[in-house]
């Protein structure tokens, strides 16, 4: 089966043609770099996404921005957000600080991307 996907690795957004058989990627065309190849293989078997979020800090008006340190399975995005909704953060928060370890059991930490004093 041939799938059409758009590579999201970089702003070029190459359109990739991916042939998948029995859950395995047989061929990828349309990519202009190797990262596209990796992306296509991943996307057509187990898609992953970075998740970024605005997370409330209990004693501050300003929320802290956060991200998963690495991509997590796409299917876990909303679970990840739900967990972040339950986190009880107190200031100060430092950029890089883990604000939710091993989110949804993905093995990936969610870290602050800025500091809130």
């Amino acid at each position: 089966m041939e799938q059409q996907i758009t590579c999201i690795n970089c702003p070029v957004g190459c359109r990739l043609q991916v042939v998948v058989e029995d859950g395995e990627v047989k061929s990828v065309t349309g990519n202009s770099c190797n990262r596209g190849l990796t992306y296509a293989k991943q996307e057509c078997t187990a898609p992953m996404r970075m998740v970024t979020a605005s997370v409330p800090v209990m004693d501050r008006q300003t929320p802290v921005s956060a991200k998963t340190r690495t991509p997590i399975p796409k299917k876990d995005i909303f679970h990840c957000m739900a967990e972040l909704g339950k986190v009880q953060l107190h200031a100060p928060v430092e950029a890089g600080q883990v604000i939710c370890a091993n989110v949804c059991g993905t093995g990936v930490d969610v870290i602050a991307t800025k500091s809130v004093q």
Partner: protein
Amino acid sequence: MEKRIIVIGGGVIGCAMARLLSRYEAKVTVLEGGEDVAHGASKANSGIVHAGFDAKPGSLKAKLNVEGARMYPELCKEVDAPYGQPGAMVLAFSQEERATVQELYKQGEQNGVAGQRIIEKDEILKLEPNVNPNVVCALLEPMSGLTSPYELTCALADHAAVNGATFVMNAKVQTIEKNGDGFALHTTKGEYTADLIVNCAGVFSAELHNQLSEKKLHIIPRKGEYYLLDHQKDLLFTMTMFQTPTKMGKGILVSPTVHGNTLLGPSADDIEDGTDVSTTAAALKIVNEKARLTWPGLSLRTVVTTFAGVRAHEENGDFIIGATEGVQGSYETIGIESPGLSAAPAIAKLLTEQIISENGLAEKKEWKPAPKREKPFYAMTLEERVDVVKRNPEYGALVCRCEQVTEAEIRAAIRRPVGATTIDGVKRRTRAGMGRCQGGFCSPRVLEILSEELGVAPTEVTKCGGESRILTGTIAQSMHKGDA
């Protein structure tokens, strides 16, 4: 005992009435249906102080327009509202229209308008190079002026308030009963009683009149839609450009505003619902097309906003001002459409004089002057800015970058006697959010200042009262809900 006077409606007429009545021994209360004064037609009209050539000679409109226009310079100085007198032209594009212009000239003479004359093409194009070169002649009206109708209304309200008038917002009068010597008013904010009432309810004035009087009146709400263009380095038109009038009104004008923007409009469409201020593609298209006759080089590239206002057109065509026939203690101003803004000072004077003489109201020992405000920051010279920020550092924080409005002015607007309580209220009093970004940058900060000054949560701050909240909750609430 002090008479209790209720003024119904906090538009320019209601506020002008409250201001003059506050000079006398009486307890004056203004009941306004909206969240703020200038909530109806007074916030959305052309802002032109007409010279008075347009109204039918002998009509109240003609008399009060000319009188009112003469009162404007002094009044605006007294209450600290913007006023300018750039003049106006009525453009004729055919020999047929030349005849109309000549007719208007004669009418102006009859109405007592000073300084008007008919000018020919060359002079027109010299004065206003952007005018369509197909112009034939024009009636030049040097006495035609400009004001900011909502700023004037706010200033009149402030002056009334410092002299003891009470303003109750969100109190829309639903029914009025004559109750012995007085009146009982049922409003959306409870009941009020009064000895005297003054109906200044704009598009709703006939409805209230009809509850008391056997002689029925009928207001046809007439919607006018406008384009507002950004101010440029130089004015596109220095004067107000009218086209020859039609039976629906003065036609589409192209005019500078008192703040240097360019205004195009209004359309004129009779509607059912007097509160309907939505804009429509059809009316805006007409405004755009007709304005091109005056200004062929029209470009909508610098449009900052479109808006609509509803005029209270009474079917008999003239203002109705005075005591309600057969109803002791009730006074009214009905059918105050154009030139209502121009006539407002004269309308208020006329009716106030009638009220005080008929009810024997005595003048107060002291009538406080209108509260003084700082000159707007955008209008200050460099020296004045150096000085003002030394006195009040909050002038150093620019909140609205498009119109150069500072934190100090926003706080001051909220603290005024009849202060702003909403984003739109701040906008009308300070111009914050009135510019080319339409509040994109400054509204979060204005919201924050309103929340601080009013002592309410940011989520409670509204655009214009009622359910018009800006925010629907915190992200904490939203994420929690998302989880459920």
